[in-house]
């Protein structure tokens, strides 16, 4: 019996040993870093912020999905070959299931969450503190801005913009959030951009714009104000960017999407062709590239005629109906690799032009110069330049038409249809929808409603 108890004791000892080896039960799989392990120094926060650049340039965001969703909703492409999610969105009848849209939504909010994680760990930062905080706020603003444009009726849809926008996330958390009003979202976006503008540096160490500078924040401010039809502020922000003289117009159209040839980019996701570096633009090529096979996106004959109307237009090189016989295709992305500008000088000039014409006075002359700098380049001369005494209306018309031609395939058109609609109720959609019809915005992922029954979904369809 003695031995029995002795052995029991032995067993107990063994048990205690195993139990006390608490470490035995602390076992994050090799290669997985916990939050404490991940964030130890400023360099870790910088690396995390670097990661967010690649998320902005992710296929599900600016490397294709954002443009795809906008072009589907727009009025330049043929719809008969679209199936599944693409067909739904094209029909402006987006239902609450659909990975194409869900993944975009998730990625935009992932950018926001990651930006909030950077802000949480700012205490580790020393010399890079301002830059990191500015980047985080810029990223957060960009994602909120694109989300509110895609998932809510535009600014100006209701007089006080109290119509529903998207959930605002300024802290990390798993709990569901209701939709804020469009005004609240824009207020948040503007506050973040204004803060970023003061925090971010004037130039980058490399002199390139592959990471954020204050000019990126200002350029996005110009875009935001312009979307609000707040022309005075849009003009001012655009003006500051242009007058910084840090950006110059590319001589060649092919440079805007190229490997390092463009000087227009105000914030550019860099393509690094060396191994194990980031390559943006994959889904732009995947959906639009036309030199290898028939792309998913092909222009309507109607828009093809618009794009190729003027014989002198050098931008006609962006179109082809011979590359893939019987299809009107875009050639802008017929490259293996390119840097991806998120906002560029041409767009800012077009904003300053239209805002300048809207605000008038001395700004009108600046607006005319802006338009002419674009048309001179586009037509290889001054043939289509505006006269110095052009009316504001003529400048606005030119700005709008040049914008469409310059930014073809860049996901620009849909937001213009809405902005112009909100501006004075004009419907410019070639497919005949009213600018504020229900289906002109994306539906929210159903998961948002399932996590929070009080969540208000969009009304679907009704655009045709």
């Amino acid at each position, binding site marked *: 019996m003695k031995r029995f108890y002795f052995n029991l004791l032995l067993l107990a000892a063994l048990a205690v040993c195993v139990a006390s080896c608490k470490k035995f039960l602390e076992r994050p799989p090799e290669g997985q870093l916990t939050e404490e392990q991940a964030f130890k120094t400023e360099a870790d926060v910088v690396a995390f912020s670097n990661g967010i650049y690649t998320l902005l340039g992710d296929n599900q965001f600016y490397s294709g999905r954002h443009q795809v969703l906008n072009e589907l909703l727009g009025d330049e492409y043929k719809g008969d070959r679209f199936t599944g999610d693409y067909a739904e969105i094209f029909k402006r009848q987006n*239902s609450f299931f*659909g990975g194409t849209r869900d993944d975009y939504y998730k990625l935009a909010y992932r950018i926001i969450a990651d930006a909030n994680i950077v802000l949480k760990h700012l205490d580790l930062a020393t010399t890079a503190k301002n830059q990191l905080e500015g980047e985080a706020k810029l990223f957060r603003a960009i994602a909120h801005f694109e989300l509110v444009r895609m998932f809510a009726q535009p600014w100006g849809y209701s007089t006080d913009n109290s119509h529903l926008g998207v959930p605002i996330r300024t802290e990390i958390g798993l709990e569901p959030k209701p939709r804020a009003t469009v005004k609240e979202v824009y207020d948040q976006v503007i506050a973040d951009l204004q803060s970023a503008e003061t925090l971010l540096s004037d130039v980058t160490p490399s002199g390139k714009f592959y990471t954020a500078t204050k000019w990126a924040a200002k350029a996005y401010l110009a875009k935001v104000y312009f979307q609000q039809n707040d022309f005075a502020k849009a003009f001012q922000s655009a003006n500051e960017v242009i007058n910084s003289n840090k950006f110059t117009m590319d001589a060649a159209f092919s440079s805007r999407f190229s490997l390092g040839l463009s000087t227009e980019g105000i914030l550019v996701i860099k393509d690094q062709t060396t191994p194990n570096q980031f390559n943006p633009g994959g889904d732009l090529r995947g959906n639009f590239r036309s030199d290898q096979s028939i792309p998913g996106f092909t222009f309507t004959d109607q828009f093809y005629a618009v794009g190729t109307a003027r014989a002198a237009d050098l931008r006609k090189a962006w179109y082809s109906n011979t590359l893939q016989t019987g299809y009107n295709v875009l050639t802008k992305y017929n490259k293996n690799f390119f840097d991806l500008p998120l906002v560029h000088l041409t767009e800012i000039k077009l904003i300053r032009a239209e805002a300048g014409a809207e605000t008038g006075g001395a700004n009108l002359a600046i607006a005319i110069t802006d338009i002419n700098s674009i048309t001179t380049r586009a037509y290889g001369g001054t043939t289509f330049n505006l006269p110095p005494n052009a009316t504001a209306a003529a400048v606005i018309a030119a700005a709008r038409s040049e914008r469409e031609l310059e930014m073809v395939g860049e996901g620009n058109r849909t937001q213009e249809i809405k902005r112009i609609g909100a501006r004075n109720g004009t419907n410019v959609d070639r497919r005949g929808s009213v600018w504020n019809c229900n289906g002109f915005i994306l539906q929210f992922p159903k998961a948002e409603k399932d996590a929070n029954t009080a969540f208000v979904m969009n009304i679907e369809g009704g655009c045709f």
Partner: protein
Amino acid sequence: MFLHKFVKTVSVVALLLVVQISFAQNKVITGKITDSKDGSPVPGVNVSGKGTRIVVQTKPDGTYSISVPASVNTLVISSVGYGSQEISVSGKTAADVSMVVTNTALNEVVVIGYGTQRRRDVTGAISKVSGDKLTSIPVPSFEAALQGKAPGVQIIQGNGLAGSGSVVRIRGIGSISASGDPLYVVDGIPIVSDQFLRGNGGAMNQNPLSSLNPADIESVEILKDAGATGIYGSRGANGVIIITTKRGKSGKPQFNFNTRVGISTYAKRQHFANTSQWLQLRQEGWINDGHTGLAPLPGLYTFATAAANNTDWWDMLTQTGIINENNLSMTQGTAKLKTFANLTYSNNEGYIKSNSYQRISARLNMDYNLTKNLKISLTSGYNKGTNKRVPAAWDGGIGDAMSSALPFFTVYNPNGSYFKNGANPVRRIQETKRREIDNRFIGGLSLEYQLIKNLFVRASGSLEYVTAFDDIYESNEWINQPDPDSGYAKRFPYWGTNKNGNVTVNYLKTVKENHKFNFLLGAEAQEYVRKGYLFEIGNFEAVPYWKNTSGYRTRRDEIINQRRTATPPQPTEKALEEYTFNSFFGRVNYSYKDRYALQLTARVDGSSKFGTNNKHGFFPAVSGAWTISEEDFIKHVKFISFLKLRASYGIVGNANIPAGKYYGNYQPGGIGYVGNPTLYLNYNGFGNPDLKWETMHNIDAAVEFALFSSKVTGEIAYYNKQTTDILMEPGTAPSNGLGNIYRNLPNSKILNEGIEFSLNYKVINKSNLKWSVGGNISKNYNEVLDWELGPDAVSGGTNDTRVVKGLPLGVNYLVRFYGVDPADGLPIWLDANGKQTKTFSLNHRVYAGSVMPDYMGGFNSSVEYKNFEFSTLFNFVVGGKIYDNSGKYQFMGVSKKNWNFREDFFDRWTKPGDIAKYPRLTYDITTFPGVPGEDQFNSTLFLHDASYLRLRELTIAYKLSSQMLSKWKIKSLRFYLTGTNLLTFTKYPGGDPEITRDFENPQDRNLSPNVTYLTAPTQRTVIFGINLGF
């Protein structure tokens, strides 16, 4: 009848004895009665002198001593559950008898966690399936052979791909994101049975269980209630499947050679429109939509060029597969050493061309009695499974033959080059090759030491080592690169070690004869790591890596070297899965007079899977049994041979979630941004320090019985299982930006409640004619009792089924199809309120059915006549629904979806006035009002009754008599012919009603069995086999 006779005989014998006893001179005979199966002593056996009324019973150690008249030359040995025997004792004073079990229900040894029990002493719900039942048919993986053989165990056979795994559900399903699969324990080692080690690559879940050799298996015990699984604590909630491999048996070396050859084909396929039908239907849809002229065709075809072709893709891709299995085993046993050894080679081709599963397997199990008190046991097995893979379902191959490979597409263009303007599954299968090679080694060593009488200490350590290679080769034709001599070879390896060690102390104590105690105390630790490389190993090669392993190694080392010498050095490998368990457990069995049995179990589990705030869980269970037939008041009820009531209650857990989910999951980026390092928080990797196991309260109550001298045996069981703290990954608001998080959902509860009934009846039991029938049926009622998320918060992998409060888990949530409007052929739907509407809307979706069956079971019959055997097994499912998700697309096949069109859709509307089953055809499904797109066209139009009856097994065998064989020094020889899945009765129009789709993740597997997407039908096989014993 038999009983009556028996009583009569006994009475007569007794009378005769009274006469004889007074005259005769007595002699004493002693001996020991053991079980023929494992040599264990059998207590309580009646030993009587033939022709006398003298009867004694064996003692607990199986020994007896009987005094009979010297004239008695024969002893009769009988016991309930064993075949009665007569042994000659003329001139003997000792006679040991090995008894053969006839009633497995009562005397069989049942493996329970960390020990064994006799069936009659078991207090938990345990079904046992012996190894011979598992090898009776060729199956892609051993678990498929359990189908229909155990009540309450739902087995949905794997699909038609070689090596595919079945869905196994024990008494329903109570989990959502955590796996609902049972815990598999092989010879005491909890093994990895995760079907997602390879995700869903190539539309197949690589099944790790297929690398267990069925020929090695002695028995499979299925532990169902908390009384049985309580000892497995946090891993017992889904039931436990204990696999015990064969061990050496006492006796001279004995060899067994089994070989079988056969063929495999499909059980039930889909049939499609041919070219001329397809073209005509295409045009019909085009005209229905209001178009004029000829409809556009895919693949650059015109109606004229298309009409010239008619390819039967199914035929092109399928074959009659050859099955070949060979198995040689040896068993031997002396007092010191017992050995079992086994060698297996098999190659089972599937019915899809170039698809096969090849097994090479070896096993050596040894038990050695070092001293009287010390036994050392070795358990070792090696298995190499080579699965020649083919793409399926959404990945092409046979999936294309059912979907986008249209009948007017051809394999080759007229100029001899491959057709590439559309799906060409033949090109795919010829120009790309895939092979999964899995090696599994399991080794275990255990020491059992008897310290003092009735006190046993057992220590065992075991190691499971797994390596796996997913090899892909794409020919030059496929990848179209400049070098004509090389294609692209790539290999994705992983390797894992599963270490397990435990120590148990077992103490037996009998107090005052009638109070028996059995104490068990144990501690266990487990560590599992599975690793892979952080990079793809691939290169342009002339041959696949499986033919060129040195090429693989060179490439691998080259990349490793690159990464190690990079600045800064880059890591080369990572853990794909890594976790630990540390557990303490105990069990007390108490029985009184062999009538009342009580069992208490408890386990404390700590695991690295659980959050910092919930590191350890405590899982107690209590169970008891009352053997009523031992009571005096019932002993005189003659037709009752055995009657037992048992009940259990316990708390068990489910910890079957990936490791590392409670920590944040940050990782340095594999790629940099502008030359600078990146760091990411993995999406879905935020971490949850509160994460813990799922908790299940499990009640079981049952009656076990044997009637009419055990001719009729059976069991009726009731269970009630309530799962709370449901582990859930999805259902968070996507605007959190962090993704899904594993968490225990508050206010969640799922009920599984059911009844199982099994009955076996030996209709005839004569020496030259035996006929028995048996069967089981079970009903499981499942309901989500508490739930606070929306209906779409959880959807299966492809958005198929839902979780809704008050309904079963995994419900079909669909728009109801009412019928076809005879006027225009458009579908009429019912809205959520049941009102007819012709406008489709996802808001019309309601509960429309459940993928879970109402009833399921199996029944069998076996006849032995002289040397012939004839046996059948049917299995069936009553109720439940199949959602034919690919049928949805096949219906719109002639639309711009461009899929094959199934023949059962021919019953469609074509002109006003038609009363048709299916709506009019269309070129664009969104012309049906309100249909947002192809993918959302989900309705009850494609929801079907899942009931079926299937002839699962049919065997005819001939056994040569031992007299004939003894001349050739052969112990046994048996020939047999077996067919599986020979007949299927179902109303399901989409082919095979048993559907194990390729699943995306455990949640998909839990919620969406019976949802098909181009799932390859199950195999039908016919084999001829020979068993030779010598």
